[in-house]
């Protein structure tokens, strides 16, 4: 049998940025320890560190919010064609997201009976779930290899005619969405979503239908199948909550202060009680 040359690929290419279990744990536990230490030392710090909205805690919140936005930058960057190093972006999302949420906890001053506490809960969930996925679930993901052997035997094969119809529909749609692409390797990118949101959505729906018919997610555990979807859904809610919080404290400072002093920078104090 003759040897057939091929390109160099895979592990032999450029060095990959690695964020293993130990550094991940170090970031998560280090942040948690720093936050706990802060609250343990807070009685000994100036009152501003205990006053919601004080310049110190306000700036802490601003910094935390900016860091907590890094994961969203990662979300966009890895889909944007402009990222040379997605794993580095992943590390940035994990580190900045974790520290950002930690700063937001500090910013909260542990006033947890107000709606922004939900934001903190979401942030903490994202940290814990993300760490769980990397530390624990990764081993289950690796255990998936060979676990779908029935696909070779297909005791319960999918409806091939239906599959073929879906694929045909995708091809037809792709001719409009991006005629230069092949259905075999195509998935809508950020550019497609920006330029043709409805077509992209229709295409994604067909792709989901194909996946559903094949049953790829059903073939793995629910945790493995849906952890990432849940992670992104909570992250979206977190982002939404963050935006609402910023808008509220900036324009509805009176409502937020609820009759108390407003220490933080704001543009309007709409929503406060009449005095």
């Amino acid at each position, binding site marked *: *049998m003759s*040897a*057939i*040359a*091929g*390109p*160099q*690929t*895979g*592990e*032999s*290419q450029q060095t*990959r940025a690695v964020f*293993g*279990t130990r550094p991940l744990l170090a970031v998560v536990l280090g942040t948690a320890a720093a936050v706990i230490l802060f609250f343990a030392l807070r009685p000994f710090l100036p009152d501003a560190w205990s006053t919601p909205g004080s310049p110190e805690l306000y700036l802490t919140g601003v910094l935390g919010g900016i860091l907590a936005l890094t994961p969203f930058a990662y979300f966009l960057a*890895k*889909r*944007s*064609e402009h990222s040379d*190093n*997605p*794993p580095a*972006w*992943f590390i940035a999302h994990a580190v900045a997201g974790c520290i950002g949420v930690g700063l937001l906890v500090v910013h909260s001053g542990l006033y947890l009976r107000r709606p922004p506490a939900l934001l903190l809960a979401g942030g903490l969930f994202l940290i814990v779930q993300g760490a769980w996925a*990397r530390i624990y*679930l*990764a*081993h289950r*993901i*690796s*255990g*998936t*290899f*060979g*676990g*779908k*052997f*029935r*696909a*070779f*035997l*297909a*005791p319960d094969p999918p409806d*091939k005619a239906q*599959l073929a119809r879906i*694929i045909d529909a995708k091809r037809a749609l792709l001719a409009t969405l991006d005629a230069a692409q092949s259905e*075999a*390797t*195509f*998935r809508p*990118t*950020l550019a497609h979503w920006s330029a043709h949101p409805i077509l992209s959505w229709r295409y994604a729906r067909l792709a989901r239908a194909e*996946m559903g018919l*094949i049953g*790829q997610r059903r*073939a*793995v555990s629910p945790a*493995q*199948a849906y952890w*990432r979807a849940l992670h992104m859904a909570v992250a979206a809610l977190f982002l939404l909550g963050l935006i609402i919080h910023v808008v509220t404290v900036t324009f509805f400072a009176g409502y937020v202060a609820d009759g108390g002093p407003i220490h933080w920078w704001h543009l309007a104090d709409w929503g406060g009680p009449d005095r």
Partner: protein
Amino acid sequence: MSRLALMIDLERCIGCKSCEAACKQEHGLGPHEYRNKVLWLETPGKPKTDFLTVTCQQCERPACLRACPVNPPAILKDPETGVVSIDEARCTGCGECVIACPYGAMGFDPVDQHAVKCDLCADRRAKGGIPACASVCPGHAIHFGERDDLLAMAAEAAQEPLDHDHYLMGPATVYLPSDGAGDAASEDAVPSLLALVADAASRDPLKAATMEGPYRAPRADRTADRVVPGGCNICFNGCPLKFHLKGDTVVGISGNDEDPNFQGRICPKSQMTLQLYNNERRLTQPLKRVGGRGEAGALAPISWDQALDEIAAKLMALRDEHGAETLALFSGTRSGIISNNGYLRMFSQLWGTPNIESTEPFCSSSKNLTFGLVQGNRALANSYTPTDIGSAGLFFYIGDNQAETRPVYFGMVNQWRKQTGARMIVADPRMSATAGKADEWLAIRSGTDMALGLALIQHIFANRLHDERFCENWVAGWSEWRDFIADKGYTPAWAAPITDIPQARIETLAEEIAAADGCMIFASRGLNQHSNATQTNRVFMFLAAITGNWGRPGGGYFNMSTTHFIQANVPLARRAPIEKPAAGRSPAAWLKAMTDGDPYPVTAMICANNPFSNWPSQERVREAVGALDLIVHLGLFPNEVCEIADYVLPIATGIEKGGVTRAADERRIVWNDKFIDPPGEAKPDGWIWIELGKRLGFDDVLPDRYKDVTVFWDEQCIDHKELGDCTVEHFRARPDRTIRVPSPDAGTKADETLYREGTTAFGHPDGNRFGTASGKLEFWTPEQERAFAALGLSALPEFYSESEQLIELPYVVIDTEKDFTSFPKMFSERPARTRPARIVDGSNDPPSARLRDQGFDTELITGRPPAPHFHSWTHDFWQAQEMWPDLYVQIHPDKAAKIGVEDGGRVRVETTDGAIDARAWVRDGIRRTAVYVPIGWGEHQPFNPWKPVNFLTDHTQRDPIADQTNLKTRLCKVSRA
């Protein structure tokens, strides 16, 4: 260019997982990081285990690529070759591709958190090579090339590829389905993975594994700076290898593609010796016991000088008190042939103890003895070449699971028989991997092979199907055997209820063997590890002889493996006198001497093997060995013996010390040079025997220069006339470092097939075709009859089985009322004690009936685990543990249901000697009345410790002629643990 692809022939796949091992070393993968994986699948109602090699399908429409959220994607598809590859530098480790692949063929690195996948070894292809998996596959099951060419190849062989494109992905990988025996399951039955290897719990222990050598190392760190030839020192396949070295580190092990027969094919064990040479658990310093036996941390490092000085002093004190025979020497696999038959043999002759044994009495002493008796020497006559074994018309395996014990040889056999259309029949109590490839599986009752052989012979004679000319000319005693068998009525009708094989099938099998144009009969431990082993081996040799299957290409009797003629000897004048006979011909006979001083005290043992794993009756063994005054253990890894040893000495292995590999079936010897240093202060065992000998005054015979194994080999080991060509220089002149013997000189090439008509046995008078005194195959001679009679038996083959069976069968007992005698010289090289035996009619108050009344209602069979394991030493290799983690009990679904155990559940197996627990492997491929437990596990192994199966075996059930122990057939109880 057409799409590139692999073609995986599931009929040729033997489930050995060599492709997995090759992939992991090629790509530096760690535990549970896969680019390919061989699955073992069980289907309810189907006795056959199916294998499925899962690897990337290189799909036309790769779902993995379309699932990748990164842009540009981290997964690429080469438009020319269709190869789908991953750019790990862009992968964020989200795992979506793993979910998306419907074939479960996308791997994931759980440590560095990224996807991994097969790219058909792009790096190797770039250098003109083929994928690693295809380069090593022993079964010729993996082919690589352009897909159209592969499909044409399948069509030419009239093989219809499996249609597995259920998802319209356009998979490029071609699967050729299995068509072997046992495809009897209903269409509704769904295969399942073995719980034993599929559950998460079995993966957890490997989190503690440390990575050395090429695993998880960057490509640059595992790229060799030199490649040198040698051989695998683990099993009897003796595969020629190439060692890939970077400095003093072995970073790769591949098959030697310059060997014309092996063509680079090797099993996973050879490759996993990477985890032997690079293993941080290796013993690296001499240790001395400073606390009580069995106490944790009671061993302290000492210098070699202190260790050897103290051992020598204690040995001399014990010799003064009890005599030289008080020292027992036990060696085996790890030591290697040069140590066992060279350094240690000479040491024992200088010291003067008769009590020196290897593992032979537990493995092969019966067949070694038998070949000597019948053929005049122990060399197997045939060779694994297309023109010899490959030309056989029928392959009949009995008691030999070659697919797992010598997978590369079996791969050759299976390939040849696929090409020639030869049939393959396997008699085995369970459907082994070998049986799974055969045309037919005969589920014989364990311990009754002799009955089957006798009935086959009777039917052949009764129907005059034998080769009369061959019998007349070349078989001494054939008519005595014929008449005896006829008189005894050993007919197929008689054998059917004994063997559980229908009479008609025995008759047709006999006719097939007689009619075949060359029948290769393969036997192994399944025959040898019985109390009737010598006679059973003789019976099947006789079957081969009377059908003319001896001394011809494609016809012969094989029982692994060829015993070398390597026997270094001390000059007679320098040998210490042996004053008393050995306590027996087996270490099993030493136990009474160790505890009771009967027939004399054995108070010291130097063991270069693991008696706490491989000796039968472990409760008794531990009591006896624990009673010794001095235990010295030569080892590679900490093990159970280290818990009680007074001194533990770290040894070198393989290319750390050089020397020849194990004895291969076909008279091949493979040479290893010393290429790397052993770890720490570990030393070659030859060095240890020389240094210890020096302290005992043996240095005139074992001088320092013999520490150089090349000097020792050339001067001491190839004295035999058949080894004249086997100098180190001549080995080094061959690219595969291999010489087939007999090879008296460089100008004489060893015959592929020995003893062919018209030839003379090497070193014998003209006309003597065989190596016996008569020049014939000797089955009955007056001399033999006298020797057998001295042990209470006859050279004629009277049937008996084991004492513990589910039906009443004759069995043998050592007659304790008779005086001790010595084994006749015909049976034993050196004097050894025994007592005469007698065959007992099983119908008169049989022990089996009493045991059955006590609930021992199941046949216990023991044997080898799958190919990646070899005795206990592979249990220190993390990858062997990844492949086969836990000790298991193969059990029929009916019996499993009866005791309420599901696949993977915990089962207790109990005999009158002890009990062990193991995990259930529920399968139809075993007799309903039997369970099977493999050897090799131990309680102190690093990843998956279990009590060894030898807690269940009985050291007293031994073959009276060869002193070989019955390890194969007992009655046991099984219950849910």
